[in-house]
Each structure stands twice: as C-alpha cells, then as structure tokens.
C-alpha cells in the first residue's frame, strides 16, 4: 500500500517483556511526560484581561462610514443589499432636504439601514460592493445578547462617531484599521 505520509509507524506486536509486564517503569515514563507538561508554557489566554489579537484581514461587525466633514457616506444605493448572500441588509432611502447638507454627503441617504447580525455571515461582500466606501467590516464581533430582536443592528449601532464633533471616538474607531492598512501597503 502506498503511504501518504512518512509518519505512519507499524504497531509493535511483540509480547511484552518482564519490565513492560509489571507496568511500573512505563507508568513512571508516563508520569515524566505529564510532569514535563506541568512546567510547560500554558496556552490559555486570560480573556477579559488579555485579548487575542485579530488578524489584519479579520471581518467583524459592519461600520457605516462618514467623510472628513462628518457626513454620512451612504447613499442608499442598495448594492450592498444586493451583494449580500445572506440577505441580512435592509434599507430605506430618503431624499436629502435643503439644510441637511452637513449631515449627508449625497442627495439621497439611508433613512433606515439595518443588518441582521444573526443572518450576516461576515463575508465582506457588502464592503466590496459599496461604491462610496460607506460600509466596511471592523475588527470586533457582535457581543452576546438576550433576544433576537437586539441582534438587528440599525444605523445608531453601526454609524462611526462624527470626526468633527467627536474626534477622539472617531480616532479610536478608525485607528486600528488605518494602522493595519498602512502596514500592509
């Protein structure tokens, strides 16, 4: 038979000799192995204090982006909803009224933008589909919740903080992503 790997070892079927029969020596060898593990470095990550770093390409919760003046980028074109294989995104468009130019970048905006995080498979196709760079996937995941209803994230949950009025929060929300993209380029 052709072996797939070089690791296969034939089973030793010789009758046990005297040392093996009384087992004590083998038990001692086994105990040395467990003792070796006793002093090994532990693999546990102490979760709330230490968090495991995500990979730079990690696809987590969606974030709705704003431009430099703090206006929402989304124009409710619906391309993300079309691209979404899990049909997790729903949105309702509305027309920008005079006087709302500081809120929305384009003449049309998303009045309602919802992603069902229980349906979402975090594939990132919405991010790829978006022509306005309005939605991207961040490096966190949806926290646990008690009811299904709360897993439907609205604009309020996903919109990035305003860079003009809340620069610190914006920097925090933005920071990690910029760092990783910079180091990649």
């Amino acid at each position: 038979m052709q072996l797939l790997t070089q690791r296969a070892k034939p089973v030793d079927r010789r009758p046990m000799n005297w040392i093996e029969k009384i087992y004590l020596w083998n038990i001692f060898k086994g105990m040395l192995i467990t003792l070796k593990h006793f002093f090994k470095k532990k693999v546990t990550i102490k979760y709330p204090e230490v968090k495991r770093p995500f990979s730079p390409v990690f696809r987590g919760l969606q974030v709705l982006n704003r431009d430099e003046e703090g206006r929402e980028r989304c124009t409710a074109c619906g391309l993300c909803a079309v691209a979404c294989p899990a049909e997790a995104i729903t949105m309702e468009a509305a027309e920008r009224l005079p006087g709302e130019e500081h809120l929305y970048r384009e003449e049309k905006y998303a009045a309602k933008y919802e992603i069902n995080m229980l349906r979402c498979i975090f594939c990132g196709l919405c991010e790829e589909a978006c022509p306005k760079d309005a939605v991207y996937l961040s490096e966190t995941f949806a926290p646990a919740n008690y009811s299904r209803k709360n897993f439907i994230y609205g604009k309020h949950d996903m919109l990035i903080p305003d860079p003009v009025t809340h620069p610190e929060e914006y920097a925090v929300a933005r920071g990690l992503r910029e760092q990783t993209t910079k180091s990649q380029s």
Partner: protein
Amino acid sequence: MTVLALDWSFAIEKLVLIAIVITVSLVVAMYATYAERKVAGFMQDRLGPNRAGPFGLLQPLADGLKLFFKEEVIPTNSSRFLFILGPCLAMLTAMMTSAVIPWGGKVELGGRIVDLQIADINIGILYVFGVVSLGVYGIMIGGWASNNKFSLMAALRGASQAISYELAMGLALIALLMLTGSLSLRTITEQQIQGNWWNIVYQPLGFLLFFICSLAECNRAPFDLPEAESELNMGYHQEYSSMKLGFFLFSEYINMFISCTIIATLFFGGYDMPFVDEANLSGISALIVGLVALFGKTFILIFIFMWIRWTLPRFRYDQLMNLGWKGLIPLALINMVITGAIVLYTMKAH
C-alpha cells in the same frame, strides 16, 4: 483540677486538639480540591481555576457556597434515613482516622506536657484499618439508598474493591510491623527518628504495595471505579445533590489527606525532619519543625496522588481484580516471608 475523678484540663486539651485537627483536615481537603484542579490544569497545559480571588484561591469557598445553595433532592423511592446516613458516615469515617496520627512530638506548654496526638493507643494502626474498612459503608449505604441501578453497581464495585485491596494493604503492613514490633504510630515514628533510616529503606516493596492499595482505598484514579463517570454516570453519589454530594466529594479528599499522612508516618518518618537533630531543638521550635516536616511530606504525597490521577487512565474491572488478587497479594506475601526470614536471621526485631 480533678472533678468527678476526671482530669478536666486533659479533656479540654484533647477537645481543643480534636477541633484543631478537624479544622486543619477540612481546610486541607478544601484546598486539595483547588490543588487538584490546578494540577489537572497545569498537566493539561491549562491554568486551572484563576477567577475567584488571586490565583483563584477563593475557588473552594465559592464551590462550597454553591453546593450549600443547591436544591436538596431526596428521591421519592429512596430510603430517607439511609440516604442521609450515607454521606454522614462517609464524612465521619474519613475524619475518625486522624485520631491516632502523631502530628508532632510532645511539647511543654504552660507547665503541661501536651501530646500532639489525639489518642496514642497501642493498636493505632489496627484502629486505622478498622475505621478504613468502615468507610466502605458510606459508599454502600449511599449507593443502596439511592435506589438506582447505576449507583448500586458502583457501590458494589466500591465494596469489592475496598475489600480486595485492604487484604494486600494489611499484608504489606504486616512486614513493616515485623520490623517495628509495635502497632502504635507514635512508637513507629520515634523508632524512625532514633534509627538512621526511614522505614521506606527497609521496606521499599512494602511501601509500593501500601501506596498502590491506599490509592485504591481512597477511590482515586486509576482505581476510581466506584465513580467511573463514563460507565456509571456518576457512581454511587449520582442521586445526591447539594451539600450531601459535597460531603461525599469532600470525604474523598479528607481520606486522601489522612492516608497521605499515614504513609508519611509509616514510611517517611512522620514528623522527622531529615538532617535535623530534633533533640537539640527547644520545645516550640521542635514542634514547628516537626509540623513542617510532616505536612511537607504529606503535601508531596498528595501531589503524587494527583499526578498519578492525571496521568493514568482507569482500570477495567477485571484488570482491577487481577491486579489486586493475582499481583499485589502474592507480592505482599512474598515480601512478608522474606522480611520474616531476615528478621529471624538478624534478630533485628526491636
């Protein structure tokens, strides 16, 4: 102070000693559960409990509290009296063994000579054997009263295991007793302090047999058949909940502590600190050195118990019986005969 022809200060001294010994064995058992989980974790490359308090040190308290707050379930078809008696008996027999262990030498405290041993009876080790064989009643009654076939099966296994291994244990001990010529644990310890060597040097095979048998007597892995989770759900305490379950689990750890102390006393010189001459030390410092020595030896032995548990898988039932009857008992007999011959030849009997 002699009222009713009783030395009352003696009675008070003994009561205080009993209280201290019981408290200490409870605390040690409590932290043995913590240590067990830590050792298990470390041997499996994990950290073990580390959430409650610094390094998880409050974990046993949290566990105890949890057990107290659990619902107490007594199955309808069980015998109520026996169901409650089971864990009580298990706990009682676990505690009673500690009465004959010499925890340290005699010390002078406030003009009185205080003996750090609850009862220095001349049949000390026989008393231990008697109480240990009573210990199986806790398991038997618990398993029987549960009115559940798995529990009953586990109790039967526990009883047959205990009886088979007690035989080998007793035979292994007879060889040692031939050398010491005394059944009193105090005398055995003092002989080891005065002599050059600990008893393990004279009785290595006897120690090995005794150690294996005490693993079996404590229902510790690889002999934990009475509570084989994978075969008997949980074993004899399956129907138990709340602190009654806690008593069963706890008595196992007390048993482990006490049997480690007895092994330390019989084979490792008890409260004898190696390379230190106790005769040169004054009362209190000798006491402290003795306690440190005894507890150090006991804790090392407890660690070895845990080390074995997290290394070896459980025996099959027929393997257990084969080892006990065809392995240990003949070996113990041979050991006994050889020791007897040597004692007769050299007249080393004390």
